[in-house]
């Protein structure tokens, strides 16, 4: 019996585990370590209309139980992703979630229209929350009305369901979630990184050339859990949760909070085998905790007890 399969708009997942966008490139490097068909899905690196070189280096800095990155949406551009990366990925039996980014609305719409037609792209992830690009990006992610509008425009042209990726750098995450729901989103992915900074003790200057960067890793997990807990109760969209996941237990905690599937970001950079390791561990953890199927964990933190009669614990 498969205890791990989950169905979400556009996505039939063998298991709820997928690498998060930007932490897995387009999969090539990781295919040296394991068969990518093992994954529930793959969230590929943000794709923009034109190729982007991204920010100057240094682009990463370490922090306590986390890291800052300011990659700046470096990617080979829509054309190359469609001509080279997606066809290469099609050798694997795994749905692709294409992370779509841009500076202005038209960019998003153009990328979404085209990339959503690729055979193995089963859903879009609208990146309205990247903290490392100067134009567009951040404003889309912090003003509800703008986010709603963008979601609607992208929905109009997309051939597949649209998930919107929320930024945690807001006063009211629920308001943002409700806005994208009203805009017609099929799902939510959360959270993106928190804006942070580190200074060099010797020079006094920022370590990152971009000055600020996005904070990811275990440090942000409690913030992600809290936000998913709030959002999952306030909207009726499914959530793909992320932020500091390192282990099968972390995955369960995200599901308890209200996520229906979980993405792993930074941990891939530390241990390239982390995703298959988590997938292998999950059945045992479910067994130990007394769940027949992983779905029983979803939203347990806020459900009334007894809602899942067959829980043995």
């Amino acid at each position, binding site marked *: 019996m498969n205890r791990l399969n989950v169905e979400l708009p556009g996505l039939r997942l063998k298991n709820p585990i997928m690498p998060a966008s930007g932490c897995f490139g387009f999969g090539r490097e990781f295919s040296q370590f394991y068969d990518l068909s093992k994954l529930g899905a793959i969230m590929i690196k943000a794709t923009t209309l034109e190729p982007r070189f991204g920010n100057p280096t240094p682009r990463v800095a370490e922090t306590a139980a986390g890291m800052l990155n300011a990659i700046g949406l470096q990617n080979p551009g829509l054309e190359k992703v469609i001509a080279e990366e997606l066809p290469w990925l099609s050798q694997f039996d795994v749905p692709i979630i294409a992370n779509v980014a841009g500076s202005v609305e038209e960019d998003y719409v153009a990328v979404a229209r085209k990339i959503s037609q690729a055979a193995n792209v089963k859903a879009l992830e609208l990146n309205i929350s990247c903290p490392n690009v100067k134009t567009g990006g951040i404003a889309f992610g912090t003003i509800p009305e703008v986010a709603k509008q963008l979601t609607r425009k992208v929905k109009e042209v997309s051939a597949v369901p649209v998930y919107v990726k929320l930024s945690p750098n807001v006063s009211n995450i629920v308001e943002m979630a409700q806005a994208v729901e009203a805009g017609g989103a099929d799902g939510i992915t959360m959270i993106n990184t928190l804006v942070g900074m580190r200074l060099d003790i010797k020079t006094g200057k920022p370590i990152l050339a971009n000055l600020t960067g996005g904070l990811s*890793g275990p440090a942000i997990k409690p913030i992600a859990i809290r936000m998913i807990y709030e959002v999952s109760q306030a909207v009726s969209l499914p959530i793909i949760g992320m932020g500091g996941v390192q282990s099968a237990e972390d995955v369960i905690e995200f599901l308890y909070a209200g996520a229906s599937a979980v993405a792993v970001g930074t941990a891939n950079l530390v241990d390239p085998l982390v995703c298959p390791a988590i997938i292998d561990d999950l059945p045992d953890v479910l067994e130990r905790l007394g769940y027949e199927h992983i779905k029983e964990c979803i939203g347990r933190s806020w459900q009334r007890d007894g809602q899942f009669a067959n829980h043995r614990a």
Partner: protein
Amino acid sequence: MIRKELCKILSQKEIAANIYELRVKATLVDDIRAPGQFVHVRVTNGIDPLLRRPISISAYNQQTEQMTLIYRKEGRGTSLMVQLEPGMELDILGPLGNGFPIEEVSVGETALLVGGGIGVPPLYELSKQLVAKGVNVIHILGFQTKSAVFYEKEFSKNGLTFITTADGTYGRKGFVTDVIKEVSFDCLYTCGPTPMLRAIEQGFPDKRVFLSLEERMACGVGACFACVCQSGDAADTSYKKVCSDGPVFRAGEVVL
């Protein structure tokens, strides 16, 4: 193939002030293809520190499946490495990147190897392999001060070896670039701080020069785009990744 392996520590010793030589046994040694490749070390199973640390392979032996890493105790990560003792295990990812091309120099030619500080270690295996091939090797090794000097004897066995120290406490006072002018060579291999690499690149526009770069890394395998540098060809807007396209580049191939 790149492997992630729990490698057994064979020995560790301090060979100069804050400079440590760590020997490990690892099957991933089988896959090393050239001197100048590096490994990515996870210094703890926990989250403090979170990221791996890139360290060059300074010597390896595929018969015995052993390799040597030489590193300077800097911050939290390398300080934890100092605590490793024989018998313990260390999580190593590697071999990574592309090393120094020894095929670029022919038997009987002279190769100049220039290392600065913690850029010296990867040159050691390179020196051994060049000598084994029948190439004349000259070394110029620059250090901060006398107590930081290491491997002078080892390099001297392979060829003429100049030592410089910035404060003049040992060898010649000054920088490696002061000495380079005095020697003649066919091909130059270098590893060290970027200003040094830049000076060398500019100094010998007509020679075969290979530079090993350092950049802050996350994944170490080419997936995260943390460690990029711009292509030296201005028309080419693409990028190179130090971890997977480098760390060794031909002079001019990337912008320093």
